[in-house]
């Protein structure tokens, strides 16, 4: 077996001509076959629907739409080339790992097993769908500038509300795992690839499909349930509901597989010397998030599937009149739903704790406690879900228990604050744009977290449940927390990914606009909720009119701040293209010891890790890894070509 000491052989360097590109499996075929698949299976669905007894016309509609989506998914995956490998395996051909890594910019429009390419694809997809969700929010706030007029018709308004929530949650669940997790996990652990590269690409393309499928709900009549999809409303809704069910199910599969991939990679493919206590805290954040993703997403999948059955073949999982119960949906959904919000929060913790040491120039304070905290959050997140149901009519004896577990989860969450505070103690802070976003994370998440304490207390929850107080709470934790941290992460790691600097001044303008208008938008909503404004309404008590107008204007300015971000990216990454160099932030982490952008093979030689990447302030500290050692340590363990020690 050859080692990595010999010069790596070169592959195809000349990109094939355009005509040759058209043949083969890529995005264009994916789109064409998806459309074809949708219409063929939709037609089939109407035929099948006729033959199932007990059907109503709307059931037939739903069967046709759901089968159509299934056909679209199959066509999409066939067109992109995901069936090639399974078919070749079914014919007994040997297993292989690498696909589509050649061909320059075309790699980004097809199945590509280079984790860095998948990460960039995810980055574009997440930004795009975040923009769609954000536009929805701008329209929602437009409607809310009046306390009872309807600029937007009632059904469309509910669809906007539902689309905003669902799109954001679907996309931000993999908002860090996708772009940053896929890019950084192999680099930070000293591997050349993820454990399952083809699966990695699959998760991306499923996400892209799911996003467009969700948007297609608009053409199917929209859906009225919000992202929580409560039954029985979900069972009686029009065909747009099927778009929600199917696209969310695709995201569930994608999320589960992303998590599976990350956990497997970290377990088997760590470079030599990377003991468990040397793994960067960002990777731990990804691992804990992945544990939640692998275990919680399947429950969502099952629940969505049950709702689809209720809508099509007349099962009655959620209909109380025929042996079912809406509480079944509530429990299944929130059993997923609460870990889901920690799937959103944990990557934020990981990013912030990873970036803070670099700009504080101090080691991460309390590394083991931080990791324990993240695992504590992950574990406890499975034990709190009924706090969404305190006034829904659950067994009253359960309420004290769930109140206790919900309050308990603030302990590991508080640990994250402790670690951040300790890292800043007597630091030498540099206020770069990523650092600003990380500091804002602490500010916002504190408010979000404290408001959670109010919600966890049952008597207080009676007034705030289902009101704008909850809205403010989760926007503070998810947007103020995760989104701020993710944007900070993008500012931090984009120079590594593309090799080009971002503009610091534009970044600071973006930051201050976003921070100020974010707080101006969402802090008043705590008051709105306490003053009696329910969620998801377009008409409200006239006494809250002024408050709502103020919030809407602030929200629009918040949207503008994100345009500044977009402008920064477009200008510096596509137009200006000023090289950033290998380590503009002077970080000690492994990925910053490589060139920017990282070459396709990551490491010329798999490095041997010396320490955790936080050795700031230690005079004569060794570098985080040794790059010059031979691939096979004398008398030591074998290092596989891909990374990982056996």
């Amino acid at each position: 077996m050859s080692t990595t000491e010999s010069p790596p052989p070169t592959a195809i360097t000349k990109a094939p001509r355009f005509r040759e590109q058209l043949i083969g499996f890529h995005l264009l075929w994916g789109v064409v076959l998806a459309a074809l698949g949708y219409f063929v299976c939709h037609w089939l669905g109407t035929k099948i629907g006729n033959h199932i007894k007990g059907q109503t016309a709307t059931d037939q509609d739903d069967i046709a739409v759901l089968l159509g989506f299934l056909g679209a998914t199959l066509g999409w995956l066939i067109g992109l080339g995901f069936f090639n490998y399974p078919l070749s395996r079914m014919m007994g051909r040997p297993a292989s790992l690498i696909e589509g890594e050649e061909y320059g910019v075309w790699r980004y429009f097809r199945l590509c097993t280079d984790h860095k390419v998948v990460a960039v694809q995810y980055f574009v997809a997440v930004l795009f769908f975040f923009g769609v969700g954000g536009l929805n929010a701008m329209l929602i706030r437009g409607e809310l500038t009046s306390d009872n007029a309807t600029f937007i018709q009632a059904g469309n308004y509910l669809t906007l509300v539902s689309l905003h929530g669902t799109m954001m949650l679907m996309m931000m669940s993999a908002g860090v795992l996708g772009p940053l997790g896929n890019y950084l996990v192999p680099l930070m652990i000293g591997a050349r690839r993820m454990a399952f590269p083809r699966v990695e690409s699959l998760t991306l393309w499923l996400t892209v499909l799911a996003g467009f499928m969700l948007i297609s709900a608009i053409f199917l009549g929209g859906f009225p349930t919000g992202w929580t999809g409560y039954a029985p409303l979900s069972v009686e809704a029009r065909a747009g509901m099927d778009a929600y069910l199917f696209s969310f199910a695709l995201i569930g599969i994608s999320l589960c597989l992303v998590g599976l991939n990350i956990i497997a990679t970290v377990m088997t493919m760590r470079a030599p010397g990377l003991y468990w206590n040397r793994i960067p805290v960002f990777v731990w954040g990804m691992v804990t998030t992945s544990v939640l993703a692998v275990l919680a997403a399947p429950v969502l999948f099952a629940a969505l599937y049950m709702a689809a059955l209720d809508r099509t073949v007349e099962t009655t999982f959620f209909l109380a009149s025929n042996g079912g119960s809406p509480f079944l949906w509530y429990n299944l959904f929130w059993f997923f739903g609460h870990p889901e919000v920690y799937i959103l929060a944990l990557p934020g913790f990981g990013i912030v704790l990873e970036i803070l040491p670099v700009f504080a120039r101090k080691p991460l304070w309390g590394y083991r406690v931080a990791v324990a905290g993240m695992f504590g959050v992950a574990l406890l997140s499975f034990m709190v879900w009924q706090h969404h149901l305190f006034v829904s009519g659950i067994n009253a004896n359960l309420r004290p228990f769930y109140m206790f577990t919900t309050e308990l989860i603030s302990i590991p969450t508080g640990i994250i604050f402790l670690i951040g505070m300790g890292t800043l103690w007597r630091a030498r802070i540099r206020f770069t744009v990523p650092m600003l976003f990380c500091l804002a994370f602490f500010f916002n998440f504190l408010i979000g977290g404290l408001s959670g304490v109010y919600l966890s207390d049952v008597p207080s929850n009676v007034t705030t449940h289902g009101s704008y107080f909850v809205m403010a709470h989760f926007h503070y934790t998810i947007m103020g927390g995760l989104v701020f941290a993710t944007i900070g992460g993008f500012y931090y790691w984009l120079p590594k990914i593309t090799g080009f600097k971002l503009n610091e001044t534009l970044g600071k303008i973006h930051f201050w606009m976003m921070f100020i208008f974010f707080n101006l938008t969402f802090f008043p909503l705590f008051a709105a909720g306490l003053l009696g404004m329910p969620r998801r309404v377009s008409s409200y008590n006239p006494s809250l009119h002024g408050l709502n107008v103020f919030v809407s204007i602030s929200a629009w300015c918040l949207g503008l701040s994100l345009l500044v971000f977009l402008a920064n990216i477009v200008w510096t990454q596509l137009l200006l293209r000023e090289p950033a160099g290998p380590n503009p932030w002077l970080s000690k982490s492994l990925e910053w010891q490589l060139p920017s952008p990282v070459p396709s093979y990551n490491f010329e030689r798999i490095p041997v890790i010396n320490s955790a990447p936080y050795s700031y302030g230690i005079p004569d500290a060794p570098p985080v890894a040794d790059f010059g050692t031979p691939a096979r340590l004398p008398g030591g363990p074998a290092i596989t070509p891909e990374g990982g020690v056996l």
Partner: protein
Amino acid sequence: MSAVGAMTDGAGPDVRHGRRILIIWAVANVIFVPIVIWVLGPHIPPYDASQQSTDQHNVNVVLSALATPVLLMIWVYFGYSITVFRQRGPEVVDGPPIEGDPRIQVTWLAATTVIVIALAVYGTVGLLPSSAAGAGGGQGPNPLSKPPNAASALQVQVIGQQWLWTFRWPGYGGVQTPYLVLPVNRWIAFHVTSLDVSHSFWAYELGVKADAIPGNDNVAFVRPTQLRSFQIRCAELCGLWHGHMNTTGQIVSQSAFDTWIAQARVRYQGVTQQLPPYSHVYYPAPDQRAG
């Protein structure tokens, strides 16, 4: 390249900064906690139209009083850090290599655990039958937070449907009224249910919220203490006109209530005769169910 500097470690700087932060925090507490309790406090909803809303208001004030020191500590610490622990000048200088301090970690964990347990106990006490602070929240068919003489409470069934509220009075012949009028200073037991999809009965000023779920009898208790009107809203997304499912209730004297309900029995007799008999839940015929 960066110049790697090393700070001289010693008890000096740690104690100095720590003392300063603690003093600033203590002063901030002395200023802001009273403001939160006595200036902001009375304005924190819900107000005092009922015993439950008053209890919930008190809970909110207590939580705010507890949250303030926590908020201030984090703000003071971070504010101090970003002001004092900053790198001045373009050089990149490392800070001291402090990797952790088990004493601080243990103290923090212990303190947060104590606070959490105290909060949980406080909240649970609020749910016990004797205190009934959580009685305004829907508790299903077997409520835990209830007044001692729950059986003699005035029973009102709240029926949610797309998109209006109606009320049935089992103690008055099962009459159904489109308005909710309640007598003051008397325990009321709401039995909240739905005919189609999930709604949520939110009587804002009363501090009552109970989800209306088909097939479920969701019980909540309240004792109104003021003669006034109150808003009723739907707090669970239920379709197109969810935001318009509003009405106004009224708290009146016992005698005014007796008059009103007697008149209602007569006025709505025709409607009531056509309704199914009073029951805790109502199931539509299979071919008329939602879905």
